[in-house]
């Protein structure tokens, strides 16, 4: 694609890459405003999967025949693309996982269970997705560590003045936070939290599932210790994600899954682990999906993550402006300066399921529910919200259709 990283996106040309956007629902094109849940896939990724399974497929790291070598090249090539995408120092530090969730679980089990005990503190925030909440609650419960959260203010931003009290309550060992909130779009000050975590002698775990698809990621600049991403939220296949972790931590951790591939040698009386990152990749991995993940990264990188971020920022500004015209809509979350392309809202107290149902009839796909953030919903005082989220293929006309649809919701059920 002949787009430079600094140019404005050629959105119509991008849209032509996505077969789903050509389809009609009830005679209308679908305004797909649920990319925060999962994104549509471009032909480049779909074609690459077909090609890989057709001509390059075999199990990896084993066969001496050429086909197996080609498969291994594809799989390891994708690891290098992920490394570059998050600016990690080495591919030894990039572990392929099943999902961002599995990456966080890996750290929770392999680092958390081994290093936590009574008197220690695990810190999460009120904004976390359940995937970066429940694993920590579980390991804290298992080890006798205490489980503390950083509260948010009414605009959905972290209240960092709570940190001193948390630090005084025990030995902080883990701080876990999402870089972008999947419910409110809040862009969190992860660099500050990472610096604070290190002052406490803690490790910083970042859930970047909702950030990596939408803005440049640099693990070295963030100063974190672990960072988890997912493929399906950035135009890649489902079933694969990646965990970046500092080599010195990964080296000291026990394996998370055990079996083939993750060993150096096995005997009846002892087994030794494979080198990084294979120590954490037991079993046949999602080979073609990892390859497709790499193709998706190429696709986004050619367009430019900075350009994608700016495009979504403009859309978010537009959406917040249009929604502010509706006196029956209450938007949750921070101002546009500290918000990614996610807008959660309430419509005249009408339940989000009903809102989303009527919008669906208008060909507008949004998410309705708790977005896997029940502690946040409790803080906001709602059971659920309606959420619209944007991506590189989103156009302002789709936001107009959302607004038109919301008038219909109000008219029917308000």
């Amino acid at each position: 694609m002949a787009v430079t990283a600094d140019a404005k996106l050629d959105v119509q040309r991008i849209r032509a890459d996505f077969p789903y956007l050509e389809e009609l629902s009830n005679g209308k094109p679908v305004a797909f405003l649920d990319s925060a849940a999962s994104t549509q896939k471009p032909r480049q990724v779909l074609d690459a999967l077909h090609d890989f399974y057709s001509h390059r497929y075999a199990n990896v790291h084993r066969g001496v025949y050429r086909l197996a070598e080609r498969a291994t090249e594809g799989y390891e090539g994708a690891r290098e693309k992920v490394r570059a995408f998050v600016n990690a120092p080495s591919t030894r530090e990039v572990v392929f996982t099943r999902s961002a969730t599995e990456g966080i679980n890996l750290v929770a089990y392999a680092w958390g269970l081994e290093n936590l005990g009574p008197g220690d503190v695990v810190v999460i925030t009120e904004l976390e997705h359940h995937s970066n909440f429940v694993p920590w609650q579980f390991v804290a419960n298992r080890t006798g560590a205490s489980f503390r959260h950083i509260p948010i203010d009414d605009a959905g931003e972290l209240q960092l003045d709570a940190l001193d009290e948390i630090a005084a309550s025990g030995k902080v060992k883990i701080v876990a936070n999402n870089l972008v909130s999947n419910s409110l779009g809040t862009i969190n000050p992860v660099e500050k939290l990472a610096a604070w975590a290190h002052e406490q002698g803690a490790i910083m775990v970042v859930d970047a599932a909702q950030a990596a698809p939408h803005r440049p990621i640099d693990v070295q600049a963030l100063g974190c210790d672990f960072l988890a991403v997912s493929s399906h939220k950035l135009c890649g296949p489902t079933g694969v994600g990646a965990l970046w972790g500092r080599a010195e931590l990964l080296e000291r951790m026990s394996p998370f899954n055990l079996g083939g591939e993750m060993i150096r040698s096995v005997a009846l009386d002892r087994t030794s682990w494979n080198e990084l990152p294979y120590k954490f990749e037991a079993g046949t991995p999602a080979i073609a999906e990892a390859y497709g993940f790499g193709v998706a990264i190429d696709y986004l990188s050619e367009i430019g993550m900075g350009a994608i971020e700016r495009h979504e920022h403009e859309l978010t500004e537009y959406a917040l402006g249009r929604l502010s015209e509706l006196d029956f809509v209450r938007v949750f979350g921070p101002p546009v300066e500290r918000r990614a392309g996610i807008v959660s809202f309430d419509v005249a107290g009408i339940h989000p399921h009903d809102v989303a149902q009527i919008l669906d009839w208008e060909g507008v796909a949004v998410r309705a529910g708790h977005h896997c953030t029940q502690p946040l919903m409790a803080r906001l005082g709602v059971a659920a919200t309606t959420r619209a989220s944007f991506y590189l293929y989103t156009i302002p006309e789709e936001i107009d259709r959302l607004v038109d649809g919301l008038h219909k919701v109000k008219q029917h059920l308000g």
Partner: protein
Amino acid sequence: MSEFDQLYREVILDHYKNPRGHGLLDGADAHAEGQNPLCGDEVTVSVRFDGETISEVGFEGRGCAISQAATSMLTEIVVGRNAAEVAQMPKEELLEEIGIPLTPVRLKCALLGLGVLKVALHKSKGTPLPDEWMQGDDLTMS
């Protein structure tokens, strides 16, 4: 008929806007609450018995029009019936009363109240618990 009129037919909207059996009963004999894990919707049900007969049902909840209307309709269907019989009530009976086509996700909304009522009957009368309401130990922070 438009899609709106099909799903949100008048009787559904009436039950949604004017729910029957709304509010929990003082001094109820049985009580249960439940959530729909897909959307976090909540229903709490309280029941009064006259012997083995359900004499009164009250509910409170937070949920969509379908879940709240279905629970409201349920309170009308079950009053005056035997507890053990209601505990075995097939979901189709409630769905017929609701009388609208439901997608799998909305089906869970429609059946939330019925499930919670069966939990209340189980707790009070020892009737069988529906499979989907069986659960193991929770994680509770000390």
